[in-house]
């Protein structure tokens, strides 16, 4: 079955984030003076097939470890849900 994982890759605490700092400066200059910190990151939506939920979790965990995040400076969190396919949507209610 088809799964959709939303993977959020964030910089580890303590890793300098000049992009986030620049965004924070821009927000404050727009008048949002209460903005104290911005941390930038990446959001990836990954559609893939797996037999069941545990296989899907194992697969996305492995993808994160092998490629999507570099543990030197990043960490990945993800949410997983079954994805409706075109075939599912074609079934009349």
């Amino acid at each position: 079955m088809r799964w959709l994982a939303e993977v959020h890759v964030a910089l580890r605490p303590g890793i300098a984030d000049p992009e986030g700092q620049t965004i924070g400066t821009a927000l404050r200059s727009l008048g949002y003076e209460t903005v104290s910190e911005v941390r930038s990151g990446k959001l990836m939506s990954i559609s893939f097939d797996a037999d069941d939920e545990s296989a899907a979790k194992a697969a996305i965990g492995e993808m994160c470890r092998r490629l999507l995040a570099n543990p030197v400076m990043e960490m990945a969190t993800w949410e997983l849900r079954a994805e409706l396919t075109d075939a599912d949507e074609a079934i009349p209610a």
Partner: protein
Amino acid sequence: MTMAAWRPRVVVAVFPGTWSERDFAHVAENVLGWECRTLWHLEAELGACDAVVLPGGFAHGDHLRTGAIARFSPIMRAVEAFAAAGGPVIGSCNGFQVLTEAGLLPGALMRNDHLQFRCDWQSLRVERPERAPAWLGDLANGDVIRLPISHGEGRYVADAATLDGLEREGRVVLRYANVAGEVTDEANPNGSQRSIAGLVNERGNVLGLMPHPERAAEAELGGTDGLRLFRSLERWLQEQPAATERRL
């Protein structure tokens, strides 16, 4: 055959988006008189070679993270085996980024702290060159060399324990410095931790550095300090027992 017939054989790896392979090949063949082969990243064998170059550029468009996708190319299995056997490997700029992603060197290279691409001549202080005999054997501790840098993501990052370990083991061999060789915040072009510009693996055969030695190999182009690394390699190779066999 005479000894003069022996020439170092270098392989330059090329990934989609690599941009410095021709500069390396030009210097190897036309300036140094070496044998040079450029190898596409899908090749799984290096063939007969004495040293491997991972050149600069934007392998796979720098997508996801610099070097993150290149590390999975078939040629990297061969480079890892070559490095594990003690073969000299140099990764410059994007090549350095690939080496860290591949785990051949610790740490990571991140976006410059000022977020700008920086292309300039840069002074570097040489430290503990004996830790990288194949690449820095002709240089002395405290030497100041001048090489071009050309990168947007050269800020060296590692956790404190890793940094302390590198320092303790003398594996930081190049630091950003001013022309006097002083390591200062002002001389650090990208915010690298501890001004690290280049480091070696534990064994000392794999060197990663953000600067471009291949762009400092002809006086007409502004400097020749890059040649000191390549001459070091040539001398080191000649001193290795295996080189004797190659000369026969």
